[in-house]
């Protein structure tokens, strides 16, 4: 049987399938559907220094094979996470990464410092790409100097695995990927949502309370795959690919494009058991193709 284990720097994943921040709650929400411990890792909801109420309702719009969200980082703040949530989830036997966001570099630093103390959290995913907050968020991830500044600052205080999550809303994503690699990122993950919008023609109002929101789901897969392919060629650190993955084939496309692991987001809403199906699907693909290690797939795209 093929080996599914992958390494992201020092981080060992039992398989390359992780869940995307903001779509899998804290894992518990899915515990009735999947055995969380069989996942390669889960990235929990975006966490900020202070508790946030998020944006006003409506926060969601369905689009062609996708959805827009404008949740806006609703969370209990890092202390709320540490005191209320962490005790409940720390015994999961999978990699729990915390997705960290902030409005200022200082907030990122302080949040990362606190999470650095949590034994059961082997890494953070630095979210410099959230399109749904007024301050910070995506702004950090769409300019190379500011992306480097945040990554640098957090790197200094955060000692475990530092994954940096890139924004697709940029002209050249490889430039930013190289920048944060230089700043000490142990891996990069991409893509966060594309900035989009929907209008209700009856009311003539935006569907979302925030007018624009983040687009996710199968509709964005071609863009995500292209960016993962570009970034994988540009950096030496492992790449974690996501964006519209909803089947084994999708996941394998990302691996072939150069991802060492993948995250599944929106597809969990439609099939809460999709992660397990993809893990099994990758195993079968290896068997059918007589490969003995999933790592053989990473970057194995044949471009002649």
């Amino acid at each position: 049987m093929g080996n599914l284990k992958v390494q992201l720097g020092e981080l060992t994943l039992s398989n390359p399938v992780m869940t995307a921040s903001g779509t899998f709650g804290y894992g518990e929400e899915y515990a009735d559907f999947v055995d969380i411990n069989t996942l390669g890792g889960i990235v929990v909801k975006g966490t900020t220094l202070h508790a946030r109420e998020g944006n006003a309702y409506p926060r969601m719009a369905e689009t062609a094979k996708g959805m827009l969200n404008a949740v806006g980082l609703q969370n209990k703040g890092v202390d709320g996470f540490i005191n209320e949530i962490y005790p409940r989830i720390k015994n999961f036997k999978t990699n729990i990464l915390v997705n960290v966001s902030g409005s200022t570099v200082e907030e990122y630093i302080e949040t990362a410092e606190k999470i650095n103390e949590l034994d059961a959290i082997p890494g953070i995913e630095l979210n410099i790409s959230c399109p749904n907050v007024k301050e910070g968020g995506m702004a950090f991830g769409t300019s190379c100097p500011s992306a480097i500044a945040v990554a640098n600052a957090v790197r200094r205080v955060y000692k475990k695995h530092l994954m940096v999550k890139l924004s697709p809303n940029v002209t050249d994503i490889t430039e930013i990927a190289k920048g944060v690699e230089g700043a000490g990122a142990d891996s990069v993950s991409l893509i966060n949502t594309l900035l989009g919008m929907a209008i209700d023609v009856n009311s003539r109002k935006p569907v979302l309370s925030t007018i624009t929101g983040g687009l996710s789901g199968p509709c964005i897969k071609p863009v995500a795959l292209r960016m993962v392919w570009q970034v994988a060629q540009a950096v030496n650190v492992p790449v974690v690919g996501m964006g519209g993955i909803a089947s084994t084939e999708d996941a394998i496309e990302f691996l072939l494009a150069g991802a060492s692991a993948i995250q599944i987001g929106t597809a969990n809403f439609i099939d809460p058991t999709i992660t397990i199906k993809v893990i099994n699907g990758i195993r079968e693909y290896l068997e059918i193709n007589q490969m003995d290690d999933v790592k053989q797939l990473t970057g194995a795209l044949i471009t002649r």
Partner: protein
Amino acid sequence: MKHITDFTVVTNQRETDEFVVLTLQHPGELPSMVPGQFAEVRVDGAENAFLRRPLSIHDVDYSNNTIKLLIQEVGEGTRVLAKLKSGDQLNLVYPLGTGYTLPKSNRVLLVGGGCGVAPLLFLGRHFVENGIRPKFLIGGRTAATLIRLDAYEQLGDVYVTTEDGSAGHKGFVIHHPIMKTETPEFDHIYTCGPDAMMKVLAKYAGSRGITCQVSLENHMACGFGACLCCVTPTVDGHKCTCVDGPVFDSKYLKWEI
């Protein structure tokens, strides 16, 4: 515990132009459900209904492991579901959300409008099983939009309003005579329907010391607390309609009424 299960369509009963009732067979023993809970239904074969669609548990028959969904056709998702045929499979994530809670007294009024009548049948049955005879107040635009009245009548008294007066009392539910008495015949209102209707009822209840449990129909992506898309403002801040609701005590909500 939440489940993800393929049900088999037993019957698809068309009630009106707009409404159908699907009876769904569960493969084994049904888990227990609370009135007001809902299912997230996967819409197969739809070109544009990408997300699951939330639908209330309309009725449950534990004796033969079937449930019913009452579906109003409003868009592509519900239209595709309304075309299902006996023998088709339907994938449900269920039972979801926090349902209605049992009352402190026996004097209950269940008020439904539009597809909001859906959870009230299961709720009414639950009351009857607990020795409570519910009263139903059902509102519609016209007589033709009132559905399954006979099913409700088997459980309790049914009062009706229509906007055009073609059945029951003319007007909105709030205009029905039973709402007008100085001393209402009920201590608890359970309601599901358009926000405007529920807000009027919440106000009515609030000013009379009556409790009012409302069921919200916010847009949902996951249905079980994972996405935080479905929030409603409450006295405790944003709460998920899908987990903390869909049923809330109206006083808990930050409603402008």
